[in-house]
């Protein structure tokens, strides 16, 4: 644009003063070095990775296993790993295996003459996965505990070998019935796999909800 006449003078003044003002305002502060969108991108990245491995429901199930089951100690026992990345991977493998197993079972059932609704079928599947994962986790957990007991003290071994000393807490271990059996020793079953899965599945949904339009 070519400034002309007094308008030209005014435009030149406008440009000069705007530049001076911006120069005096300097640059964006320290927040610009760590923009807010980066946090969003990290959150998005994580949820995408998890869903890529597991799918929404199964991701919720992993969270349920890790949360309801007493966190890292159970996860470690269940997967035999101390590395969080490996923990997630191992649990993911367990869940994937269970999904396959349940799918096969479901296919067998679907050939039966009684027709089921989709929702009921899904609920049954989730419940099946919950039971399956619970049973796998308990299986691994017991194996891990047995190994530890062999290498530690007689008292530990006795405790491990005789779950009847504390019926409310140890009874479930090794049963794999999906009703709070993923609880850590001493915690008891504080929830069941299905409920945990349901809640965390919703949380997963929330994470993948499309963002609102910026109305640019």
């Amino acid at each position, binding site marked *: 644009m070519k400034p002309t006449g007094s308008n030209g003078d005014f435009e030149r003044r*406008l440009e000069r003063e*705007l*530049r001076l003002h911006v120069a005096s305002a300097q*640059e*964006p502060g320290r927040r*610009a070095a760590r923009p*807010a969108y980066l946090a969003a991108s990290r959150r998005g990245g994580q949820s995408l990775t998890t869903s890529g491995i597991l799918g929404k429901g199964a991701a919720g199930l992993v969270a349920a296993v890790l949360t309801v089951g007493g966190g890292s100690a159970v996860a470690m026992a269940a997967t035999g790993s101390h590395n969080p990345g490996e923990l997630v991977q191992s649990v993911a493998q367990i869940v994937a295996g269970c999904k396959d197993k349940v799918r096969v079972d479901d296919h067998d059932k679907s050939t039966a003459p009684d027709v089921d609704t989709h929702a009921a079928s899904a609920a049954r599947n989730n419940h099946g996965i919950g039971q399956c994962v619970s049973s796998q986790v308990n299986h691994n957990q017991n194996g891990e505990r047995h190994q530890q007991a062999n290498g530690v003290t007689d008292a530990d071994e006795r405790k491990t070998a005789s779950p009847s000393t504390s019926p409310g807490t140890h009874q479930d271990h090794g049963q794999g019935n999906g009703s709070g059996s993923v609880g850590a020793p001493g915690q008891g079953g504080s929830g069941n796999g299905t409920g945990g899965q349901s809640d965390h599945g919703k949380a997963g949904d929330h994470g993948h909800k499309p963002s609102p339009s*910026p109305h*640019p």
Partner: protein
Amino acid sequence: MEGSPQPERERPGYRPGSVEDFDRLYEATNHRLFATLVTLLRDRDAAEDCLQEAYLRAFRAWQRWRADAPAEAWLHRIAINVAVSYRRRERLREVGELIRRLGLPPDPDPAELVVPELVRELRALPSKHAAALVLRHLHGYSNREIAHALGVPERTIASRLAAARNRLQARLVDPSEAESGTWQEPSVSSDK
């Protein structure tokens, strides 16, 4: 900061949805967007807040960005909308403050006193008029780019710029002849 215009908007190659490309876009544009916001808004903190908000919104919409518009103009559009919303809220706060003080004139903002008169009067213009002037006279945007940034047809830009310049000149000659000392958003769409 603004002296050597090497506009990002002329560089091709941003892929919608690519985080790496968005990082690149951020690096290339955040200073210019900040310059726009710090001119339109009253203080640095507000400008920084709006800058963060604008990039966050842009990032959420990045998957849907289409390369038919310059990326920087698109970002400016989002940032200006954020600034307009901010100014509306600020005006509401000012009205509330005025009512609370029962008509007494507000204390002068010390930060505002050191701002050049021209910038102060520019801020008193309708947001999108002020934005059009900033985009043209600070960033050297073309009419087409300003149209993208403001979300209005290109043919209205020349008249909007002329109207904005006239209003600003009038305010500089005699601020009292302008409508008021605060924001006048409703007239934004008057020349659409």
